[in-house]
């Protein structure tokens, strides 16, 4: 049989929209086969998810829009969906059709958004998802009658079971390209007269014909985003005209905004009559019964804190060994490279630049994957909304809402997944506030810094001991203090952000508590995978670049030939020593002469090695001092002197920009420790011995505290800053984070040192 040649057809764009908790992402994943291009819409913090599929030779782009209850935008982020649906979003063509997903067990409320979508001029397919759940509740829906009444395709699906997807696909394929749909227009004529008047006025502003839908929103949304948008983009006096129009509407008995909700819900109620049969009496659902426990005064809290403890315990139990594995993997690769490439600039670049940079990205993955796994499970099961419900009262005293709790708590392990988790917060300002304070939480990367300086300088005094084992010690108190200082500082920071920068945007907590359900493994795995991938690809490249830049700053412009000579010598000696050892093992008892000869050689080489190591340390530390990094350390010395620091600490701080814990190895190099800089006892000894040129000791308790406070509050973490860039889709917010946190860290370190010096 000869297949007819495929008719080239125009690419189709389909927008998918619906209320939150309707199974929209599950459906999107099923339709797109799990493959989606993920990026950001320009200018907003909204994720752009596009799945490109080819069905029956037709290329179709599925655009997933954020879940929303209404198309009345309150912020630039909520405006995104409206812009896409009106074809005003330049990165997406005007959709040829809209798939509106509604929760079958709750059609009335879902039809509010649906009726707004019907006011656009794009053909719509209505999807009734979770039909099984509706049936189990005794709700019967006659979808054919509904389709007839609405005169548009209605498809019943059970996305969790993958049912109804083929029907939906064929409904999509039946949609024409560029077809028009007659807007629903529920409002009385007087409203449309006012709308047309207003539209004419906007025409004068060369608004290139504001679409009807947008002018409707301008009239309807009192204090909404469309109002402030037009206020800034049109003639003065528009707001007066708008208010006059609203007053006239009120006089005509069509007061906005109340009219919209009344008319739309009225329409939905009428439409559903005879189509949906609800059970006569409200039942107590299984979800309600679970909720009685989950939100119980005592048990609810107990369960919540046990769950959080379990999440944290899992992160430390599972992420720790994986991170160790990544580190040993990195060491193994280092070793292999060292055996292949002789000491020289290339080896330095590969080992200290490239491999260290890749390792610095991968090391974050275990925590991201594990934390995000839990977050995805909590969200998919419906518990996330309960967590916000339980914690809201407490978080509100910090000027945030319950939705910020999980992101902030995750940040105590690592700010990167914490910031990624802020996607659950729909309110833009609240989300930004959470993103900005999240890096203040004491993450696990700060611990090496704390433990090093506490072990070196804080006396181990026990205040309370039980059976000779110390329970409360000064070291413990300092560690606790350092871990809490960030969270304490976050309170006023959040307050100031809200009070002065994010004013006027009241975030209503009005939140749906969705039914509990078993999380879908497919959904959870896909989400974790997408997050991890986006971190490695998007943030990873930037973190990697930062590592290379810091490497180059520490490497150039010094002459490394002597260092490489010493290194070659050390390595050849190492090889000889190994040979000698082998020979020693094979020498027979009787051969005293050879034995002695070999032992002599061994002693000689060992002592030469010791000298070489010391020489190497000196050369390395000198090279760092004369490098760009060292120069900048000297250059910032006047700035860091009031903190009690010398230039070497300054270098350590600059070098630790990619990640806080880097300061330890940098201090190791710069205090001529060389070799294994991670060897803490050696490092403790050499920093204790460090002196200023006049012979005074550099480090004392106030200096140690000042460094710890600095690292508690600073933003020395390229990964965090890059994730902020990625999540807010702007370089402005990472710059703000870095600036304010560095300023806070400086002031905190300054106060700790200056006050501390009174007691020394």
């Amino acid at each position, binding site marked *: 049989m000869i297949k007819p040649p495929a008719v080239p057809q125009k690419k189709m764009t389909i927008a998918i929209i619906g209320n939150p908790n309707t199974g929209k992402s599950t459906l999107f994943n099923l339709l797109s086969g799990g493959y989606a291009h993920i990026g950001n819409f320009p200018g907003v913090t909204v994720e752009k998810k596009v799945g490109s599929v080819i069905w029956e030779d037709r290329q179709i782009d599925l655009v997933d829009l954020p879940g929303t209850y209404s198309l009345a935008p309150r912020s630039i982020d909520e405006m995104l969906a409206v812009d896409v649906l009106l074809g005003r979003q330049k990165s997406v063509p005007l959709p040829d059709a809209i798939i509106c997903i509604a929760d079958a067990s709750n059609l*009335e409320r879902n039809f509010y958004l649906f009726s707004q979508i019907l006011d656009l001029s794009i053909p719509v397919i209505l999807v009734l998802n979770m039909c099984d759940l509706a049936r189990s509740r005794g709700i019967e829906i006659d979808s054919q009658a509904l389709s007839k009444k609405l005169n548009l395709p209605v498809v019943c699906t059970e996305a969790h079971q993958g049912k109804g997807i083929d029907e939906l696909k064929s409904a999509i394929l039946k949609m024409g390209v560029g077809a028009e749909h007659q807007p629903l227009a529920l409002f009385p004529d007087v409203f449309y007269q006012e709308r047309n008047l207003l539209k004419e006025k906007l025409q004068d502003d060369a608004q290139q014909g504001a679409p009807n839908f947008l002018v409707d929103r301008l009239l309807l949304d*009192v204090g909404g985003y469309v109002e402030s948008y037009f206020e800034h983009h049109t003639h003065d006096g528009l707001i007066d005209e708008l208010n006059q129009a609203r007053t006239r509407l009120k006089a005509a008995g069509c007061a906005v905004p109340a009219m919209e*909700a*009344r008319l739309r819900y009225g329409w939905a109620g009428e439409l559903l009559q005879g189509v949906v049969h609800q059970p006569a009496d409200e039942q107590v659902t299984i979800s309600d019964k679970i909720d009685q426990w989950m939100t119980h005064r005592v048990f609810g809290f107990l369960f919540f804190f046990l769950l959080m403890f379990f999440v944290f315990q899992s992160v430390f139990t599972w992420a720790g060994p994986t991170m160790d594995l990544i580190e040993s993997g990195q060491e193994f690769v280092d070793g292999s490279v060292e055996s292949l490439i002789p000491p020289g600039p290339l080896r330095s670049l590969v080992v200290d630049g490239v491999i260290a940079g890749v390792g610095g990205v991968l090391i974050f993955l275990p925590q991201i994957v594990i934390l995000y796994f839990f977050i995805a499970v909590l969200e998919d099961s419906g518990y996330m909304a309960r967590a916000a419900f339980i914690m809201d009262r407490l978080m509100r005293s910090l000027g945030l809402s319950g939705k910020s709790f999980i992101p902030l708590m995750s940040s105590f392990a690592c700010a990167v997944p914490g910031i990624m988790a802020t996607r659950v917060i729909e309110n833009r300002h609240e989300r930004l506030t959470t993103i900005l304070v999240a890096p203040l939480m004491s993450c696990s990367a700060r611990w090496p810094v704390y433990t090093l300086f506490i072990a070196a300088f804080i006396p181990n005094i026990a205040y309370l001991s039980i059976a000779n084992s110390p329970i409360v010690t000064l070291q413990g108190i300092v560690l606790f203090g350092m871990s809490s200082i960030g969270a304490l500082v976050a309170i006023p920071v959040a307050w100031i952000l809200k009070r002065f920068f994010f004013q006027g945007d009241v975030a209503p907590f009005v939140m749906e508590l969705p039914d509990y359900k078993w999380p879908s493994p497919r959904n959870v795995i896909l989400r974790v995978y997408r997050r991890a991938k986006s971190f490695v690809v998007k943030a990873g490249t930037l973190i990697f670049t930062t590592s290379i830049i810091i490497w180059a700053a520490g490497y150039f412009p010094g002459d490394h030939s002597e260092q490489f000579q010493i290194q070659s010598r050390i390595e050849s000696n190492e090889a000889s020593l190994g040979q000698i050892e082998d020979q020693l093992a094979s020498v027979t008892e009787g051969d005293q002469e050879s034995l002695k000869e070999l032992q002599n050689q061994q002693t000689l080489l060992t002592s030469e090695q010791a000298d070489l190591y010391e020489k190497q340390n000196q050369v390395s530390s000198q090279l760092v001092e004369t490098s760009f990094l060292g120069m900048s350390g000297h250059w910032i010395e006047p700035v860091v002197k009031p903190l009690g620091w010398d230039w070497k600490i300054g270098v350590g701080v600059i070098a630790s920009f990619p990640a806080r814990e880097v300061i330890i190895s940098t201090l190791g190099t710069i205090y001529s420790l060389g070799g294994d800089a991670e060897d803490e006892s050696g490092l403790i000894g050499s920093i204790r011995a460090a002196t200023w040129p006049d012979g005074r000791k550099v480090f004392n308790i106030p200096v140690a505290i000042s460094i710890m406070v600095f690292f508690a509050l600073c933003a020395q973490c390229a990964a965090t800053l890059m994730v902020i860039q990625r999540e807010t889709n702007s370089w402005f917010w990472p710059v703000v984070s870095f600036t304010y946190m560095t300023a806070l860290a400086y002031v905190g370190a300054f106060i700790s040192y200056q006050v501390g010096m009174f007691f020394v």
Partner: protein
Amino acid sequence: MTLNQITKGQTVRITQINGEDAISIRLMEMGLIDGEQIQLLGKAPLGDPLEFAVRGYRLSLRLNEAKCVEVEIV
């Protein structure tokens, strides 16, 4: 009477949403419209926010948001 004053398990009828701000618009979008019945299912462990059943779904409102909703006993 306003919605923050009802007791657990009580069902009331909404008579009016006060205000024209973002909160009242949001409440109306969520289906809280005069004539609609609403039931208080429970409270968060710290007494705020509250969980309601309305239009067949579960909604969480803070006390100060519930205050915007005028209700009458059915």
